[in-house]
């Protein structure tokens, strides 16, 4: 099974042309604002872009709760996501390579993976709080669960899709099994691993916000920020928080893509 690395050739992606994307976005914002002004979109249900921008200003310079500034919320969320991601990556990638390499191991582990994988990370929240309490550890655990399986599955399929001729050639040239594992299979699986990393980080970022809804200890986090905004019934601040989450998620994906392109240039 060949898993596509998910890389879109630059010329086919219209988002690569910043002007087109920006134009479309601004047009959408103008229409949104017009709808708000004319009352087609009632302000009680959805704030106008102008309100959202002023809420962003408030979040950035005054903070919510007061003095808890936006960059602190972003930073706290990033720390949680990358904490969970780190543990998921260092466990899922080696396990995935071993599973791809060793058939008996794959047969033994696969049923467990298949049962655990469909459980939404959010269903683990009560257990996570029980095991790790409120705070970074349980949030990181929830994110770990979201990140682990995409990386694992993509790594396994990456190893399995390694070119048989390359393995044969390596054998002919006198390579030992550990060398084949490290040089041929692992490197051959890299594009697929990167796909797993990108999907995993995306899922992790989505999971984070909900994980923070259960409570955080230091008063920071984008999910927590949204909960506070809901507590005081400020839809403009809620939407502003959502937009920040979207932008940060988009940036993370962009960084990973760039990293992938640079690291896999030789392929």
């Amino acid at each position: 099974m060949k898993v596509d690395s998910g890389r879109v050739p630059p010329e086919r992606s219209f988002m690569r042309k910043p002007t087109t994307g920006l134009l479309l976005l601004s047009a959408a914002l103008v229409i949104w604002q017009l709808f708000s002004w004319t009352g087609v979109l009632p302000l009680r249900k959805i704030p106008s872009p102008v309100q959202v921008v002023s809420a962003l200003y408030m979040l950035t310079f005054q903070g919510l709760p007061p003095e808890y500034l936006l960059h602190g919320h972003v930073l706290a969320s990033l720390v949680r996501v990358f904490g969970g991601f780190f543990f998921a990556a260092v466990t899922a990638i080696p396990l995935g390579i071993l599973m791809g390499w060793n058939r008996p191991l794959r047969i033994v582990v696969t049923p467990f993976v298949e049962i655990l994988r469909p459980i939404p990370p959010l269903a683990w929240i009560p257990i996570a709080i029980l095991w790790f309490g409120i705070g970074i550890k349980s949030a990181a655990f929830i994110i770990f669960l979201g990140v682990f399986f995409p990386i694992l599955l993509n790594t396994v399929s990456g190893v399995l899709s390694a070119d048989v001729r390359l393995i044969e050639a390596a054998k002919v040239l006198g390579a030992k099994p550990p060398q084949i594992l490290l040089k041929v299979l692992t490197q051959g699986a890299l594009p697929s691993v990167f796909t797993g990393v990108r999907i995993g980080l995306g899922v992790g970022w989505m999971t984070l916000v909900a994980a923070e809804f259960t409570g955080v200890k230091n008063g920071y986090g984008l999910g927590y920020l949204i909960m506070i905004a809901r507590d005081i019934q400020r839809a403009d601040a809620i939407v502003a928080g959502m937009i920040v989450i979207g932008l940060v998620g988009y940036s993370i994906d962009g960084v990973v893509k760039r990293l992938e392109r640079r690291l896999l240039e030789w392929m």
Partner: protein
Amino acid sequence: MVIKKLLAALTGILIGAGLLWGTALGAGAVRIGYLQSDLHQLAVFVALEKGFFLEEGVDVTIGGIFKAGPEEMTAFASGGLDVGYVGEAPAVVAVGNKAADVKIVGQANLEGSAIVVRKGSGIKTVKNLVGKTVAVPGYAQVQDFLLRKALAQNNIPAKSVNVIILRPPEMIPALESKQVDAFVAWEPYPAKAVSSQIGEVLLYSGKIWPNHPCCVVVAEAAYLKDNPKVIKGFLRAHVKATRFIQENPEEAVKLGVKFTGMDAETVKIGMGNIAYRYKIDRKGLLEYVNFLRTMGVIKVSDPEGFVQELVDESGLGEGPS
């Protein structure tokens, strides 16, 4: 032909689903909301269990049971509720920020919250809370207010205490596992912490602010305008239930056990901390409005006018509170 049959079947399914949906929503009935296991709001459960709403000719259906007031106010904003039992602060915040349009039509209770600390934590006074982590059910709502007031009374800056938000059902486990050093919650959670030997009460809310108003009955403004008779009937049932609790404490405890799923001892301790009243306390309401203004949570230029606008007592009958 096949397409026609398919279309007919599809239409049938859609109509059936629509009917089911309509029945599930309890078409025509008053959609009510209240907080999960909140002993302050026992009157709603008493009225449901004793059939007081039906006696007063009001058909009610549960529109939602919520973990905290802000969630319930969001349900009002989305048009999912007609009448609700909720804390005074979330109601003021929602109206002040134009998120939901409701009127306060009756009081549910006075007092009934407490600051609870872990047993053996060594916290003996409010001053000992400095540097500790304290959980409240929501930002800028009743218990958050009570905590800030208690701190202010002891000249402690709010910033010197680490306040975090936890929904009350999660508070006792958090206290036990030392995630937090104290919490402020509505009854029966303080009582439960005491009866399960995990916590002890540092301060009852009646000591922070005597006779402070807490939960109220709110009605969606448009619904109230269109259905004044229904709201009157609803409030008659509410008054009846409130009096029933005042006059039949033992049976009220039994109903409280059923409502909260907690043991009789806990419910009894909890109810001892609550004054069940239905007359609206405007002065106390004004204090909430002013507090929320100074916190910067709502922007209201004329607090007295705001209160005047927010309260509608016309549905409540005369008589002692």
